[in-house]
């Protein structure tokens, strides 16, 4: 599949603070009763954006000053738990283009990369500074430079990390592996013949 390279993500950001934000929180399982990913964006963080009675909790995503944000900022171990691709699908379908966090659970990271949703890892102090800046100045433009693995926002600028194969995939527009996998089908068949 030929895809556009993703070299930079620029936009306003919204802090979703906390560690270990799991995929059940990103999209509760009961909203996965579906056969397509359509419409999942509306259930992003559903149970923490609403009380059980359906009242808004004024979650950052629903606060006016963060309206239209395209970059999510969170804490450690973001996306832990279930392997559901519904989680990054919901994030993408809610309009987000990248996530900056302390680190990421492995399956979530892979699922996100395949969808072209870059997930970059920042040091705790940098993340903290960025979060504070965005809370104070929500209109600040944040830029993630995937080539140089750098985040800049206002006067802030700090390095981030990303698994080399993911970075390579995003920069070259090969983050969805299907075309490369299909190209090797003859080799796959050869190997398969020798494997139980």
């Amino acid at each position: 599949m030929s895809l556009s390279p993703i070299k930079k993500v620029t936009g306003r950001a919204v802090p979703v603070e906390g560690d270990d934000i799991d995929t059940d929180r990103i999209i509760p399982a009961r909203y996965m009763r579906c056969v397509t990913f359509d419409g999942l964006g509306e259930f992003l963080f559903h149970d923490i954006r609403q009380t059980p009675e359906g009242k808004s909790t004024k979650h950052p995503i629903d606060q006016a000053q963060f309206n239209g944000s395209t970059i999510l900022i969170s804490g450690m171990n973001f996306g832990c738990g279930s392997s559901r691709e519904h989680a990054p699908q919901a994030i993408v379908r809610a309009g987000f283009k990248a996530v900056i966090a302390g680190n990421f659970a492995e399956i979530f990271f892979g699922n996100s990369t395949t969808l072209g949703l870059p997930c970059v890892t920042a040091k705790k102090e940098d993340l903290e500074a960025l979060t504070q800046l965005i809370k104070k100045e929500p209109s600040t433009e944040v830029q993630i430079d995937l080539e140089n693995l750098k985040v800049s926002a206002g006067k802030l600028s700090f390095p981030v990390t990303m698994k080399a194969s993911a970075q390579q995939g995003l920069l070259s527009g090969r983050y969805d592996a299907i075309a490369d996998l299909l190209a090797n089908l003859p080799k796959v068949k050869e190997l398969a013949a020798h494997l139980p």
Partner: protein
Amino acid sequence: MGKTLFHKVWDRHAVAKLPDGSTQLFIGTHLIHEVTSPQAFGMLRDLGLKVAFPKRTFATVDHIVPTDQRVEPFKDTLADAMIKELRKNCSDFGVTFFDIPSGKQGIVHIVGPEQGITQPGTTIACGDSHTSTHGAFGAVAFGIGTSQVRDVLATQTMALSPLKVRKIEVRDKLGPGVYAKDIILHIIRTLGVNGGTGYAYEYAGPTIEGLSIEERMTICNMSIEGGARVGYVNPDEKTFEYLKGRPYCPKGKDWDAALTEWRKVASDPDAVYDDVKVFEASEIRPTVTWGINPGQGIFIDEAIPSPEQLPVADRSSAKEALEFMKFKAGQKLAGQKIQVAFFGSCTNARLSDFVEASRFLKGRKVAKGIRAIAVPGSQGVSKICAEMGIDKIFREAGFDWREAGCSMCLGMNPDQLVGDEICASSSNRNFKGRQGSPTGRTLLMSPVMVAAAAVTGEVSDARKVFAQT
């Protein structure tokens, strides 16, 4: 220099190096279910692709099936659409489906081993993070997302980077009333919920070798709760004994040939590991979680820690957990009233779990007002429980005995918590909202501890309740 099982299996299944530097890995067996596969089949149709090796994919239905009544159409029209979609996809693409009428339906991670589809030395993938369960047989098993389900359907391969391997050695003897579930909850509590990121966990040592295959499955199952995508145990004679004669295992001469291969896949004695951690089984006691991630656990005789006692990195999560759970630091969980007891899930709904708990439930009654449900992991487990009279013991004790499925492990079917109910649960995740109610509270523990909580109506030390010595 010796190799680990992980590297032996990886090398044997590597097809090619991909342009981004990752490896194209062949997947010997692909397991699918109704939640994470429909979109993948949709993508195949959009791309005009077929399933490359339909005989290597097996399907079942588990997450959304009601466990009380199985009459179709299901009352939940969305769930009904999902089972119908899976039927259609399996029929269109030639995939074996262990459907409800087959008598072989169940939780995908219980069905695979039960049918002998899960075998040593293979690679397995499934769109479910608890796929690590299959590592109990010495397979390398990955939980994957839906786009990768598509990749495996279309090519029987996926793009991956190799993992590091951490050996987790458990030695010494487990005390009475301490189970595999306690070992893994203790490991997660000690190494952290993201301690395993980037690693495959090899569970080894005399304690692990002494466990039954089903107990090993419980341990491997929760690798992902410790951040490790893959967990495995080196196969041994117990593994082969467990598999012998199962429907999809090789027979006759093929069995002998398979055994020869399987005996070679274990990690070499001089294998080099990226990390080694050692645990003493004798120090582990029955464990219960108090928080909102599976690493927030304590021994039954311990008090809930105050955030200040914990490492800095764990404090904010602990504060959030105390608030959500409405518990206080310093409080003991023993004596905490519960409303629901859930006995089931891919972690603990195998035959041995029911056999063990039935020894203690016989002649006892679930405490008044407690909603207790027991959900066998598969129709196969259910059938044997019926033959052994185990269902009767659970029913007479006051458990609601259900049909096979994921049930109350996650809120995708009618079995859900209501409001802020507290559930003593043999499942694997205590995340906020996991059991279907956004404010529901989950306490993870071993199945025998769930049985003890059910009969006393509160979190209890099963060793005392059942006089386990």
